[in-house]
C-alpha cells in the first residue's frame, strides 16, 4: 500500500520525519518530540490538504534536494527562500504538483532555521507510542528513529496528490517569524526564586546570542552568564520551552526532544505561542525575554490557534 514517493538526493542538515507530539508517556521518561515550529508545519500540511499533524519532513538545512518517484503534491513552508522544480524557480507559499522524475531543490537563504516539506497524504513512518515523530536520541518514530540521509526513499500513504492549488493568504502573520532577532515571552519558572534580583535583571534586560550548540534537544544561549549556587537540585519536570541555568551560567532552552526531567534550576518557561519564533532562530541570532503572566500567554496562544483554524476551515468550506 505504501507507494515510494521521493528519493532524497541531498538530505542537508538534521532532517527528520515529524508529526504530532508523543503525548502521555512523559511519566515513563519519553520526550514529546514533534514539530519545532508548529505554525510553519501546519501551514505546509494545509497547502496539500493534510491534517495539521500529518507526518512531514522537518529540516535545519540551507539546501535540500530530492527526486520524485511517483506524482505527488507538495507544500513547503518555514525557512525557505527559493524552490526550483527542474531548475525553474517557482513561487513560494503555494501548492506544487510534482511529476515523476522531477528534480526539486529547496534553498534557505532566510533568517529562519527550519523548513518543512509536506506531501499530500503525509509520509509513511513508524508509529511508536502514538506518534510518527522522530526522536533521534531515543530512536523512536520516523524511519527507524534515524535522521534522514541522502538516498533514503520516502513512501507515502493513500492519496498523494491534490486537485487544488492553495496559496497562503497575503500578509498571513507567519512571515514575521523569520527575523534574525526575537523577543519571546516567558512565564516565571519554579526556581526563579533561587536567583538574586541582579541575576533576574540580567536575564530580562539583555539579549542573548544563540550559540552554534543548537539541536532538537535544546538551544544554548551565550553572552550574559547567570550564576547561582543552586545547580544540583533534584531532577524535576521539564518541557519544551523550559529555560535551565546550568553551572556554566549560559541558559539552555529545552526544545521538542528535550528530556522530561532536569536537575538545573528552571528560571522560566517560554510561552508556547512564542516557541515557533524561538525555534526558527539561527546561531548568531539574538533573543530577549519578557516576563509574561500565564493568562496572557494562553490568550495569545488561543489567537494563534485561531488563525490556523480559520485557514483550515476556509479550505474545507469550499
Amino acid at each position, binding site marked *: 500500500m505504501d507507494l515510494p514517493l521521493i528519493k532524497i538526493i541531498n538530505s542537508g542538515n538534521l532532517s527528520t520525519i515529524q508529526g504530532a507530539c508523543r503525548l502521555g508517556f512523559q511519566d515513563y521518561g519519553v520526550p514529546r518530540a514533534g514539530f519545532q515550529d508548529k505554525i510553519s508545519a501546519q501551514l505546509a500540511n494545509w497547502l496539500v490538504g493534510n491534517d495539521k499533524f500529518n507526518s512531514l519532513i522537518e529540516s535545519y538545512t540551507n539546501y535540500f534536494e530530492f527526486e520524485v518517484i511517483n506524482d505527488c503534491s507538495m507544500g513547503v513552508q518555514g525557512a525557505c527562500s527559493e524552490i526550483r522544480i527542474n531548475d525553474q524557480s517557482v513561487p513560494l507559499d503555494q501548492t506544487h504538483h510534482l511529476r515523476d522524475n522531477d528534480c526539486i531543490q529547496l534553498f534557505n537563504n532566510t533568517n529562519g532555521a527550519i523548513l518543512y516539506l509536506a506531501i499530500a497524504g503525509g509520509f509513511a513512518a513508524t508509529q511508536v507510542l502514538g506518534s510518527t515523530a522522530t526522536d533521534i536520541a531515543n530512536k523512536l518514530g520516523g524511519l527507524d528513529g534515524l535522521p534522514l540521509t541522502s538516498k533514503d526513499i520516502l513512501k507515502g500513504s493513500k492519496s498523494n496528490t491534490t486537485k487544488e492549488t492553495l496559496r497562503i493568504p497575503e500578509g498571513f502573520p507567519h512571515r514575521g517569524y523569520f527575523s534574525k532577532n526575537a523577543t519571546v515571552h516567558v512565564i516565571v519558572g*519554579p526556581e526563579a526564586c533561587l536567583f538574586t534580583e541582579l541575576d533576574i535583571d540580567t536575564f530580562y534586560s539583555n539579549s542573548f546570542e544563540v550559540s552554534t550548540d543548537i539541536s532538537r534537544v535544546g538551544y544554548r544561549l551565550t553572552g550574559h552568564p547567570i550564576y547561582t549556587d543552586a545547580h544540583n537540585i*533534584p531532577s524535576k519536570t521539564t*518541557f519544551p520551552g523550559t529555560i535551565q541555568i546550568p553551572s556554566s551560567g549560559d541558559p539552555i532552552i529545552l526544545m521538542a526532544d528535550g528530556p*522530561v*526531567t532536569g536537575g538545573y534550576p528552571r528560571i522560566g518557561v517560554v510561552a508556547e505561542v512564542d516557541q515557533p519564533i524561538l525555534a526558527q532562530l539561527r546561531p548568531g541570532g539574538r533573543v530577549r525575554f519578557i516576563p509574561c503572566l500565564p493568562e496572557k500567554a494562553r490568550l495569545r496562544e488561543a489567537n494563534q490557534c485561531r488563525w490556523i483554524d480559520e485557514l483550515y476551515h476556509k479550505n474545507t468550506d469550499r
Partner: protein
Amino acid sequence: MAHIQWRYLGENAIEISDISSNVNVQIGLKDYLKGFPELRIASFMITDKNLTLVSEKHGFMSVSNIIDRVTSYRHDMNVTASLPLSIIPICYDEVFALDYRILERFCKLDYEEIITLHLNAEYTVAMFGFMPGFPYLKGLPLSLAIPRWKSPRKVIPKGSVAIANEMCGIYPNQSPGGWHIIGRTPMTLFDPLKGNITSLKLGQRVKFQQISKRDFDGFTPN
C-alpha cells in the same frame, strides 16, 4: 492535604511541590485527581516529592479548583502499593562495574562490601526521567552516596546500574551520562513496542539479585 505549594511551569502546567517523600502519596493524589475530568488535566508527571499537572489544549478549567481538590485529598497510609517486588539481576563483574575503584576510594569500602550494601537494600521506583524508562530508585544506603561526575561520560552501555547522590538508576539504553557505574543488568527495561513499555512501575519495590558473568552472558529475557 494542608500547606500546598504550587507554581506555574509554563502557562499550561502547574507543579505541586514537596508533597511527600513517599511516591505512593503522589500516585494516590494523581489517581484521585483523575476522578475529576472537569478540571481538564490532560497528563501527570511525578518527580521526587512533586506532581506536575498538564492542562488540556485550552488550559485548566480553574487552577483554584484544582488546588481545592488537592487540599481536600487525604492519603490513606494503610493502602500499600499492591505491585509485586521486582527482582533485577545484576552482574558486578569488573568489565561492567566501570567505576568500582572510584567508589572504593570515595566510600572507603572494598568492593565486596559495596556489593553487599547494594544487594541488601530495598529500593522504590520514585520516578522515571532523563531518558525513556530510566528509573530513579530510592533506598540507596547513604554510605554509597557519591555525587555525579562533573562532566558526563559520552557512552554508558545499555543496562548499566549506576549511582548518583542518594539514588540508584539503570540506563535502559546506551546513552551519555554522569552517574557512577557499579554493574550491569541483562534485563530490558524499556520496550516501546510492548504493551508494558517499562518493566518497572512507579512506586514498585525493587531488589537486586547478583548473577555471575556466565549467567549474564546466557541470560534470556522471558
